[in-house]
């Protein structure tokens, strides 16, 4: 199959509607007849990444590259960057504001969830410049 590349602007303004990019990718994979287990892993990992871009970085650009071996998700933002990636990867570590916690997020499980559901996770980040997550999920 020809690789399919889907690109989305992720709006940083509205946390409550976040997830549009992940939803669209999920639908696409379903139409392409990908296995439910792979679709679920992609949807979960991408949604957590998308939510992070909205909560922590005022939005960004999400890309999904689909081919027969799996899906590569890239989430790039121009937010504040992550100071200590090892700390951020720990379950329970979160700098999310109170209003985000009140909505049920900010439990510090997002990055660990992405790691759990992906085959490879790469985090490139620079303070004051931004963060790019590259997530590979294989068949």
């Amino acid at each position, binding site marked *: 199959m020809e690789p399919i590349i889907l690109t989305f602007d992720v709006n940083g303004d509205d946390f409550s509607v976040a997830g549009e990019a992940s*939803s669209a990718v999920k639908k696409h994979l379903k139409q392409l007849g990908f296995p439910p287990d792979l679709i679920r892993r992609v949807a*979960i990992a991408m949604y957590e990444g998308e939510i992070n871009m909205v909560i922590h970085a005022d939005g960004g650009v999400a890309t999904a590259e689909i081919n027969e071996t799996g899906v590569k998700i890239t989430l790039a933002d121009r937010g504040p960057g992550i100071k200590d990636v090892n700390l951020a990867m720990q379950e329970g570590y979160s700098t999310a504001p109170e209003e985000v916690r009140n909505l049920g997020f900010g*439990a510090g499980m997002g990055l660990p*969830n992405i790691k759990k559901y992906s085959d490879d996770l790469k985090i490139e980040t620079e303070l004051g410049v931004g963060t790019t997550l590259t997530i590979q999920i294989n068949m």
Partner: protein
Amino acid sequence: MTVHELAAACGFEYYNGKDLDAREVGGAYCCDLLSWVIGRAEEDAALVTVMSNPNVMAVAVMADLPCVILSEGVRPDTLALEKAVQNEIIVLSSQEPTYETALKIHQALESKK
């Protein structure tokens, strides 16, 4: 047991999805922290929560959960309900707290075995 059979057995009301095809329910996952839900809930788990915002519906979609059950008589907010309709998520209401709701689900599932 399907979501509809579960709703009937436990006396849960519908906010959405009375006419939707129902999936099988194998258990429940009770939590209000959405990253816990998305990371830990099994695919056949009914989500029992008091969270009623649109993100709950997004999580149900991403994690492929068969239904959302709002405990304590909590009502979904308008946007959440819209999202549930759009994404064909069955949303049920339980008047009881989360623990009692989960117990009812357990009893219903056991009686069907």
